[in-house]
């Protein structure tokens, strides 16, 4: 079961069983964005609140609702913890770094991306060995990217 152990690390299962920042925010003022995985039909809704303008604005709150598998739910849960309190520019850099960790090309890397510390999210590295699950892992991130574009 070594492959599965690599995928289902304890931190991932913890976020799956007890997802952080679940719920909804009033929209507006929050930006509401929906994401779905056409492969399995999973749908999530992300609520984003930023304070300020442009890349220097600060992500003050993120909430996630909807259903998904352990990978999509834990990834989104850890993502909310990672980006709350960061600037929009930093959040975008984390999205690029995460997508690059998932082996997704065309993510337009910027200098310094490699130095970004994803913290607990590094536990999702094992997903790369299971290509069909990559879409699950990035679902929350793509939805966040969409919300940031519209914030």
């Amino acid at each position, binding site marked *: 079961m070594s492959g599965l152990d690599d995928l289902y690390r304890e931190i991932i299962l913890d976020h799956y069983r007890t997802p952080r920042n679940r719920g909804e925010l009033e929209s507006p003022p929050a930006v509401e964005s929906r994401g779905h995985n056409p492969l399995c039909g999973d749908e999530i809704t992300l609520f984003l609140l930023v304070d300020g303008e442009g890349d220097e604005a600060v992500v003050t709150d993120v909430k996630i609702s909807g259903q998904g598998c*352990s990978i999509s739910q834990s990834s989104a849960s850890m993502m909310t913890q990672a980006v709350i309190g960061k600037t929009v520019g930093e959040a975008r850099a984390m999205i690029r770094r995460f997508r690059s960790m998932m082996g997704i090309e065309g993510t337009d890397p910027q200098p310094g991306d490699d130095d970004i510390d994803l913290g607990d999210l590094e536990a999702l590295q094992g997903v790369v060995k299971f290509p069909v699950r990559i879409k699950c892992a990035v679902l929350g991130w793509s939805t966040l990217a969409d919300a940031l574009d519209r914030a």
Partner: protein
Amino acid sequence: MAFDLDTVRKEFPILAREIDDKPLVYLDSGNTSQKPRQVIQAMSDFLENSYAPINRSSYRLAGEATEAYEGARRAVARLINAPSADEVVFTKNATESTNLIARSWGVPNLGEGDVVVLTHMEHHANIVPWQMLRDELGVEIRWVPLTADGQLDLTDIGRLLDGAKVFSFTAMSNVLGTLPPVAQLCAAAHDAGALAVVDACQYVPHNVTDVQAWDADLVAFSSHKMCGPSGIGMLWGRMDVLDAMSPFLGGGNMIDTVTLDGYTTAPVPAKFEAGTPPIVEAVGLRAAVEFLEDLGMAEIRQHEIDLTRYALDTLDERFGDDITIYGPTDTAVRGGVLSFAFRDLHPHDISQILDERNVCVRAGHHCAKPLMQVLGVQSTTRASFYLYNGTDDVDTLADALDSATDIFGF
């Protein structure tokens, strides 16, 4: 050849494949079936010895290839008891067949406010082509609902079909396994003056099919789910219905003549077969039909009834309330398709854990999202059986499900 599971399995080379030193437990035949050696061999032999264009050139090799292609048409006609092989049209897949029906029958015959009746357990292939006509022509779609155990609720069928022009329904649900009463539904359609269209994609590979006994008008099905290759699908239709339909794609082979001013169409079935068709695939399909006929469709159906019964009982005994299996429990009205929910685990995670033991199942919406909404779920895990599956496969499935608990602790 009498039906013997060990003998059948030996005919499928892929079933000898091991991953991580463990055998393959292929439970995704509702998605696509594996291929027996004689299908692989027939395609390979044809490519090595007889490949040539069909219906175009006059040399002997081309004649041989044309004969092989037409032989496939005759084999398919025999399998479904069609009155004439000319009523069998080859397409790319069953989805193209349903789209052909919507385009070539629907567009000329339907208009604003005309009613098309579908059911809640249709595959997207029998929903979206009609929704396209709703958007383009303003046709109205009505839905036959389901009972709590996943059968068609026919209580209001008379009212739903009242004034309908088309009743298009599946002969076997790809999610629930439900086998609705096809002949009764065709009769109900005809009583209402509607065209009876049957999506038999899941049905034909697993059952004795008799399109005349059904009294259907148009029937769509595919090769790759019945041991044949992918890339070729079938549309059977009553000749008078097919003859009155508009052509589908335009090009070579489908014309009688072409001038600068226009064209006339070839007779059915060529009228619907524009361009070079899947020739090699037709040869493989013929071998698949002969393989199934040798075993006997009634024997295959009986094997799957026994296996489905065993699976329903085993999963219930081992997991009780921890597992919810959707669809009818009576194997007389259900095929070998088991969609289920298990211990609050997401189907993707279940599928991942089963894959560790090479148990291949489908996790997702099964191209039936409206049905998922009716069931109140986003997705399910689906194990689907075929003639090469046995009780040992069900046992491995159950063992593998058990191991999910170890990982997730649910």
